[in-house]
């Protein structure tokens, strides 16, 4: 949560500075993206990214998923953000190539019996990571961005019957987006 708060503060501080930072005229500095693997696993993920200063961009992301099947059903809501530092900037596409990022997210999952709808409980997940990624661009507009992240994931039981738990995590992402 500290990392998430820091992301918001940094984004607020750097956002006004983006207007005149030497970026090429007509450069694409905005990306709307999704995680395509979410679409094939009963989920939806959306991310909006904006260049906010030389080498820096901010991502706001959110998602929804119904991962449980069989005798159960579930709903997962997720929101988060990333602060990305781009190692290089080139031409009209400022936010491409390799980057490092601070990533934070918060998710809430609720589970129920599918036959009766009886709720069984909720779980919260807090995740903080450092990501490394690389954005490939095609035709100047399509962006494909694989990434890998290392961090910590905290599980919190909504009922309080189970203790909170923190574990290390390795995350793999694949973002597909459109640049504007």
């Amino acid at each position, binding site marked *: 949560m500290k990392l998430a708060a820091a992301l918001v503060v940094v984004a607020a501080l750097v956002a006004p500075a983006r207007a005149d930072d030497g970026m090429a005229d007509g450069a694409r500095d905005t990306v709307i993206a*999704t*995680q*395509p*693997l*979410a*679409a*094939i*696993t*009963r*989920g*939806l*993920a959306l991310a909006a990214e904006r260049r906010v200063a030389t080498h820096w961009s901010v991502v706001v*992301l959110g*998602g*929804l*998923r*119904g*991962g*449980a*099947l*069989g*005798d*159960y059903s*579930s709903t*997962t809501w*997720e929101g*988060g953000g990333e602060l990305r530092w781009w190692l290089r900037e080139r031409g009209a596409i400022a936010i491409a190539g390799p980057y490092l990022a601070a990533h934070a*997210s*918060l*998710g*809430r*999952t*609720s*589970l129920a019996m599918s036959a009766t709808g009886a709720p*069984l*409980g*909720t*779980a919260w*997940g807090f*995740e903080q990571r450092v990501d490394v990624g690389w954005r490939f661009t095609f035709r100047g507009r399509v962006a494909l961005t694989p990434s890998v992240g290392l961090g910590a*994931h905290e*599980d919190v*039981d909504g*009922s*309080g*019957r*189970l*203790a*909170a*738990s923190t*574990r290390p*995590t*390795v*995350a*793999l*992402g*694949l973002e597909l987006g459109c640049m504007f």
Partner: protein
Amino acid sequence: MLLQQGVKLPLFAALAIVPALGCVAPRELHDVTYDPRHGDAGRLDLYLPELDDHAHATVLFIHGGSWTTGDKSIFAAAGRRLASSGFAVASTNYRLLPTGVFPDDAEDCMCAYAYLRAHAADYAIDPERIVVMGYSAGGHLAGLVGLAADDPALASDCDAAGGQPVPRPAAVISASGPQDLRVLWGQFGMGSTLERMFGGTPDAQPAAYALGSPITHVAPGAPPFLIIQDAIDFGGMVAMSEALKAAGDQETLLHISGSAHVLEQWDEPGEYEAGVSSDAPEAWIATEDFLFDTVGAP
């Protein structure tokens, strides 16, 4: 004196609050020997809740690794979480391939379970409230312990079991664990591993494959099962669910869409994280509900 009281009161308040938050670190006993004949394979780790005067509901973890690799430490984080929540937890090793052929692995798990029952008083365990839980190969072995602990054909000759069957556990959680090894033999290149485990193909060793497949032991009166299934049904998990339901046994199936055995989606749709299906948020909620429903408050 006032200063001393001023210091003590917040300290006592903190000591009272910390257990309420479930933040008490569990006691850990590593490498407890349940069968001295098999070295490290005959050891288990214990994660025990704070000392009190009642016998605790207990979870026995059995690790995965295709019966060839893996270690009891895989469940350390889950063990600490459950122990911090009041459950006693054991995580056991067992003999692995190539030397640990069937039924060595199953008998070791039976022995570890028998050890917990025999030493229940030593560790504040309630022997009638032991839940056996495993992942992947461990999910298969958990199914066997759950359905065949009282089968003389799989009784361990270790000291704790004494060559005798033991009462079945209170419940079973099998996560991503194949339940019909005759089916698994033809899936995902698992044939050669299973042939080493059983000494041949299902056609050549039909009795051994049947003895080693939990689904063949299904009958009315089985302990409650929670089956957590990957995106792909391998090794007859769905068939096991249907067989238990058909027998009138208590069973629920949690199928986690997108789960790829060792790559899972937690809270962020589309992102994959290294892990096991039993650590997915849906699985933790289902596990918590199942534990409290079957063995009650820890």
